[in-house]
């Protein structure tokens, strides 16, 4: 029987691994490894290996549905579209376009994201955002400010050229497993690896030196490192004077951060801080890798700036083996941002509060008056829904009821909406709250481009037909737009990409024809441009071509421990699950390996609470209580507990305290207490 191999991009994390789906008689029969892929070289993490299990899950949404009270009934596409256009249209007409909110998805393709934000803005609403808000909004803000671009500066395989890899706030061994291959390769060539994390994670196993810092104290650690580097004259003076400004401010800002003082704040021994500072600054090529451990804080933007400052004063940027490498979460979180599915940016990071931007897109979108001004962010939309400032929402492929902090509160807010439409592949917790649910196609059932964390834009092919009446997000958005009187005439993803090529300069040369295995890395300004793996090698896209060293001060996390809540709860991911778990918890071979929510607790903390390994415990914060199984381990320090957020319970507990600028919630620090369930 003829078997065809269809090249696709893994639907999970942002590493952008490629693999082939083997298709026989219209059915996916297996996965074949893509050995020629530049980033994963064929290898896949457990999630990637189990990717097809999700496609054939029994839980897939097959038909459009509407809710009557607590009952769901199947409806036709025509009826569904009518309900959606009526629901959204009524709000826009009666309350104004800004009373409608659109949540795009970092799981959708670039083309879909582009269309969703175009839909929102064409309807006059400024409120479009995506879940990048929950992971890397501080990177977008902080890196745009300091470096002038918000992507990973160097591609993943370039890690192999690094001589010192500093991982802070990232458990990449579990979350972006294929990166470990490149880190090992660097180690084989003599690189040293430093990992800073509140937990002794699997990533820490890779480390030559491990710094177990208190959650939320990153700025203190980074500032102290910079003070050591400045005091010991390990800065790159030539680079500072040629390519940066603001260094003098930094010198002043960090002068009080002695290693001893930082040791008090962070819990990391002063001598280790000095050692790490020297290792990082002296190495001929040092790279910093970070992810949610840096961003999911009220000080998220500060943390990111601090990371950028460290790279700038040592000149560890713009060259092979160096750089600032934010590891994104979802497979297309980079692309969703590039495509302008953000409250503050139109496509190509054109500022939404600039009238010129509205004018520019207005000309090509034949909608004369596009809204000007920053819209509500994803998290703000929830608040707005609560207090009536938002009346209708269109949520594509996101599950805020599960993934946002203080999820019980989120549910209340969403229920407060006049109209909610959710478009997804499963009946998620959020979909349960909707008025209309639209069945979407999974990644294997549609085509389009995804932009991985290393800015690699890759084409993923359609391998299968969607089940039932499910349709691709692209088709659905076009249908919704047409039903609301907009001219969204796009026969396929390629035609949308062609429009993106015209409007987004960094994507100009990334045309459908040029996208083979491995794709192209933006910026790619013309069709004969090879792409730009390393950013900032010829200056920065900021005023004078200089990067901005923007000093920050340590601020404690929003919540502190007290007598009622004596422990710090921090959250993260494990290898076999992904994010809120809507996919991985429907994947038997993954579920089998990690079926239960657990909480890691240090033996010193567990003993007085009479908690033994495997006990069922209750974890409580101001916002709620969750049951989990105790895992007694010294991977976490005394005073800190850890829970993965793949299970519904975790985000009952987390706080919605946000970073002032980037609006990201502080998932990583919450005060809690734990008791044994008897």
């Amino acid at each position, binding site marked *: 029987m003829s078997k065809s191999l269809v090249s696709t991009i893994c639907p999970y994390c942002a590493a952008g691994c490629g693999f082939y789906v083997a298709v026989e008689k219209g059915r996916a029969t*297996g996965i074949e490894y893509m050995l020629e892929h530049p980033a994963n070289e064929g290898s*896949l*993490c457990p999630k990637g290996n189990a990717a097809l299990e999700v496609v054939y899950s029994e839980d897939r949404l097959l038909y459009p549905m509407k809710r009557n009270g607590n009952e769901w009934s199947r409806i036709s596409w025509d009826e569904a579209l009518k309900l959606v256009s009526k629901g959204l249209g009524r709000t826009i007409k009666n309350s104004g376009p800004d009373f409608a909110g659109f949540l795009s998805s970092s799981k959708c393709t670039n083309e879909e994201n582009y269309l969703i934000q175009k839909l929102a803005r064409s309807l006059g609403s400024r409120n479009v955002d995506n879940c990048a808000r929950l992971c890397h909004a501080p990177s977008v803000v902080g890196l745009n400010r300091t470096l002038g671009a918000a992507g990973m500066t160097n591609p993943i395989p370039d890690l192999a050229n690094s001589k010192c890899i500093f991982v802070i706030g990232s458990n990449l061994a579990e979350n972006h*497993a294929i990166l470990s291959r490149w880190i090992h390769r660097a180690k*084989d060539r*003599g690189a040293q690896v430093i990992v800073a994390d509140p937990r002794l994670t*699997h990533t820490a196993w890779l480390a030559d030196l491990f710094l177990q810092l208190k959650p939320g104290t990153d700025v203190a650690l980074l500032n102290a490192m910079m003070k050591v580097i400045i005091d010991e004259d390990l800065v790159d003076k030539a680079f500072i004077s040629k390519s940066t400004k603001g260094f003098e401010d930094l010198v002043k800002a960090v002068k009080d951060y002695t290693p001893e003082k930082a040791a008090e704040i962070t819990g990391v021994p002063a001598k280790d801080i000095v050692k790490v500072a020297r290792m990082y600054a002296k190495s001929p090529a040092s790279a910093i890798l970070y992810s949610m451990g840096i961003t999911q804080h009220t000080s998220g933007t500060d943390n990111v700036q601090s990371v950028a400052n460290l790279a700038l004063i040592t000149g560890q940027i713009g060259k092979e083996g160096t750089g600032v490498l934010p590891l994104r979460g979802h497979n297309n979180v980079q692309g969703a941002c590039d495509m302008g599915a953000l409250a503050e940016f139109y496509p190509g990071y054109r500022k939404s509060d600039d009238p010129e931007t509205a004018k520019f897109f207005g000309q090509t979108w034949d909608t004369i008056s596009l809204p000007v001004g920053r819209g509500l962010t994803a998290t703000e939309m929830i608040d707005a829904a609560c207090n009536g400032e938002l009346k209708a929402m269109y949520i594509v492929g996101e599950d805020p009821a599960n993934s946002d902090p203080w999820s019980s509160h989120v549910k209340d807010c969403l229920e407060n909406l006049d109209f909610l439409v959710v478009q997804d592949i499963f009946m998620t917790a959020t979909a349960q709250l909707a008025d209309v649910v639209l069945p979407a196609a999974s990644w294997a059932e549609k085509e389009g481009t995804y932009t991985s964390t290393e800015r690699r834009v890759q084409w993923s092919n359609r391998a299968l037909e969607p089940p039932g009446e499910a349709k691709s997000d692209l088709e659905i958005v076009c249908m919704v737009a047409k039903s609301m009187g907009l001219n969204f005439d796009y026969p396929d993803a390629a035609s949308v990409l062609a429009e993106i090529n015209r409007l987004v300069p960094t994507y100009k040369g990334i045309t459908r024809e040029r996208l083979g295995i491995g794709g192209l890395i933006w910026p790619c300004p013309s069709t004969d441009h090879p792409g730009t793996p390393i950013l900032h090698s010829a200056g920065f896209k900021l005023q004078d071509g200089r990067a901005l060293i923007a000093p920050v001060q340590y601020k404690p996390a929003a919540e502190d421990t007290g007598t009622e809540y004596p422990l710090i709860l921090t959250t993260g991911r494990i290898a*076999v699950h992904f994010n809120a778990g809507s996919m991985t918890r429907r994947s038997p071979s993954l579920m089998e390996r990690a079926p239960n929510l657990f909480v890691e607790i240090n033996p010193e903390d567990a003993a007085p609470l009479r908690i033994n390994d495997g006990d069922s415990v209750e974890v409580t914060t101001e916002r709620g209580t969750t049951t989990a199984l105790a895992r007694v381990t010294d991977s976490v320090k005394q005073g800190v507990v850890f829970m993965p957020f793949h299970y519904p319970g975790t985000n009952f507990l987390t706080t919605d305290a946000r970073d002032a600028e980037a609006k990201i919630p502080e998932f990583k620090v919450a005060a809690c207490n734990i008791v044994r369930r008897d």
Partner: protein
Amino acid sequence: MMRVYVDINRCIGCRSCEVACKRVHGGKGHVNVHISEDRASVPLFCHHCEEAACTMACYSGALTKDGERTSFSLDKCTGCGLCRLACPFGVVWTDKLAHKCDLCAPNETPTCVLTCPAQALSNDYELALKRARARAGRATILGGKR
């Protein structure tokens, strides 16, 4: 056909090999990753021992040495389970009938090797040793100098 070697210094405990092995063997996986107190992980699977205890224990002739490989023939298995008892590594599995690592024959490279993100698994027996030696050498020579 080369057996699989583990460089435990590289294993990150992601269990990709487990999932991949199960995927290609119709739901019956032959790899077990043991994570030890969150400090290290060891993927355990058939070592294809030169003098394999399982083959000696097997009196139905289902388990035999086939060059490098300890091969298993489902047709001959009587499900007595002696192989499972004999294997010192606990990597011959019984689910009524026995099943075990077949090195993904007839593929040249076993699936677990291909999928391992950290390249902890390889079928180049010298590679792991070479890396270990390079590590030890670096520690000796560069130890104090970096």
